[in-house]
């Protein structure tokens, strides 16, 4: 090669660096564009309704009244119930796979748990609609309402397609996230810590209870928050099983609607104009909620990691 090649190389490198930076910038702009488009699309709805959009519980075309309260309530309720189920089940499953099961068992089972996360949401929804909602109605809701229907939150509906079934399905769908992230957290606990506890005569549960879990709560918390973000955004499985009634649910077995299910159900029928603007405003609420979850999880991990480092240094 001659000297000219040398300068050509440098030009090539410069072009490559600019190309990479341009793609990086494009990804950044993509996110900003998502925010900008949703804010602009939602602007009209917020201009007309103001902050009342969030507290109004009527969604009605004839009176041109659009409020997000039933859907925000539905999203909060389904994700909260799903977390109550998925968090203990997910942590216990992760403990079983990481700390109890022998490798020949834990490797294929870990793999199987990952496959749950890969199942398309619409297939899980079809199963929830045709199978799970019938099981929950006949085996859980009818007997519970018959015997304890007078207790708060437990009656009088037994439709099957409702808050409870949707939350159960949602719990199944976010469990793999909790399991995978918890296993990663457990893997960061030094092996020496486990052996030290075993060497003192601790049982396997005492190792988990007194060594692994105390070091892992921060990471598990972040895992939970990320799973919560997923649960809030989950659309198809919930849409197909929640009953799709625009009301603030007053009981566990009431049909309801989440932000995402309302968007999916209403989209094709929404009247162009204020109703479409209001649906986009719902999308903006969902966007803000889910992005907030990502940031909380990041903060949680960073804070705890530093705290843990401090402990180890001392």
């Amino acid at each position, binding site marked *: 090669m001659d000297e000219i090649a040398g300068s050509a190389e440098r030009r090539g490198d410069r072009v490559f660096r600019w190309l990479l930076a341009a793609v990086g910038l494009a990804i950044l702009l993509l996110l900003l564009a998502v925010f900008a488009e949703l804010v602009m699309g939602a602007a009209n709805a917020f201009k007309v309704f103001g902050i009342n959009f969030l507290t109004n519980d009527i969604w009605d075309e004839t009176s041109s009244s659009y409020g997000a309260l039933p859907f925000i309530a539905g999203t909060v309720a389904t994700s909260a119930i799903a977390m109550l189920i998925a968090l203990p089940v997910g942590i216990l499953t992760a403990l079983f796979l990481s700390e109890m099961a022998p490798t020949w068992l834990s490797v294929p089972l870990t793999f199987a748990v990952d496959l749950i996360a890969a199942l398309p949401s619409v297939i899980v929804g079809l199963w929830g609609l045709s199978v799970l909602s019938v099981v929950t109605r006949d085996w859980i809701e009818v007997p519970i309402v018959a015997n304890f229907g007078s207790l708060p939150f437990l009656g009088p509906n037994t439709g099957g397609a409702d808050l409870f079934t949707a939350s159960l399905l949602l719990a199944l769908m976010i469990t793999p996230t909790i399991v995978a992230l918890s296993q990663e957290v457990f893997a960061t606990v030094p092996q020496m810590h486990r052996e030290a506890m075993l060497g003192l005569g601790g049982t396997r549960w005492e190792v988990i209870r007194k060594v692994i879990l105390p070091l892992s709560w921060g990471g598990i918390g972040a895992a939970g928050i990320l799973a919560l973000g997923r649960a*809030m955004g989950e659309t198809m499985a919930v849409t197909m099983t929640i009953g799709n009634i625009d009301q603030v649910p007053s009981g566990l077995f009431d049909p309801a609607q989440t932000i995402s299910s309302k968007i999916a159900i209403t989209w094709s029928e929404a009247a162009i104009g204020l109703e479409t603007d209001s649906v986009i405003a719902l999308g903006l609420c969902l966007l803000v909620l889910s992005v907030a979850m990502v940031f909380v999880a990041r903060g949680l991990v960073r804070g705890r990691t530093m705290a843990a480092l401090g402990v180890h240094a001392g």
Partner: protein
Amino acid sequence: MMAAIPALGQQPVDDGTGALLLHRSGHERRRMLVNRVATITATLAATAVILALGIIILFVVVNGLPYVDEQFLTMDTENYNQGGALAAILGSLQMVPLATLIAAPIAILGGVYLAESRPGRMSGAVRMATETLAGLPSVVVGIFVFTILVAPTGKYTALAGSVALAVIMIPIVARSTEEIIRLVPASVREAALALGIPVWKTMLRVVVRTAMAGILAALMLAVARAAGETAPLILTTTGNQQVNVGNFLGSMDSLPTFIWLASGQPDDLLNGQAWAASLVLMVFVLITNIIVRGRTAGRRRAH
């Protein structure tokens, strides 16, 4: 706490918990009981999760298989209760590859950028943007693409559907690409640079090529994810039950939207075909995941 020195001839008790006890007092029996109960509870939790997967797969296979027939595979959905899912199958086979073509170059170069750029404000912002994009609900992506591509013309198009799927794929592939490129040993890069090869050629021809198997694996997982995405397509491209080959400015059906629409109809054939479409989609998604993850599962989380 610890057991007394065993009498001559007394056997140590191995209770399978890893703790070798020489003698059991009441206190230790209680600890063993707690350990046993905890083990059983965790086993039950794991069993329930795995069982749920098995039951879903079983139902999809049993309900779907009888309906995967010639009619399902060869007919339009035009005649609504005597048609098939050909339009949906062909729609998925076109929109997902187009989405991959759009997403792959952006995502791979984005991943290279994340792996190679010096830590700074710009690269930090791009990394945060990628993470945030990965956490976006897919229905929000659908609304976004609707407002930029569908609303201006008022036409639902397959192109808009593909773009929506691409937006979902980009952060997944970019993050994996970054991780994989970071795994390429520095010595490989240094050897190439020491030979006088320009940085850009080293990156593309040596580093990215070394990482190619991993990048392709990440891309395949993203394809499997995109193939099952429903909500973004409902918002950008439904409304066509006829076969559409090649016209990306027209609407296309897809397997997930077919499942969604057919499952809601009061029609036994369509309900059955919803299961059949689920079976076809599930087989594709699970086989892709098994092939791709099967090769990497061993080292991912087996610490």
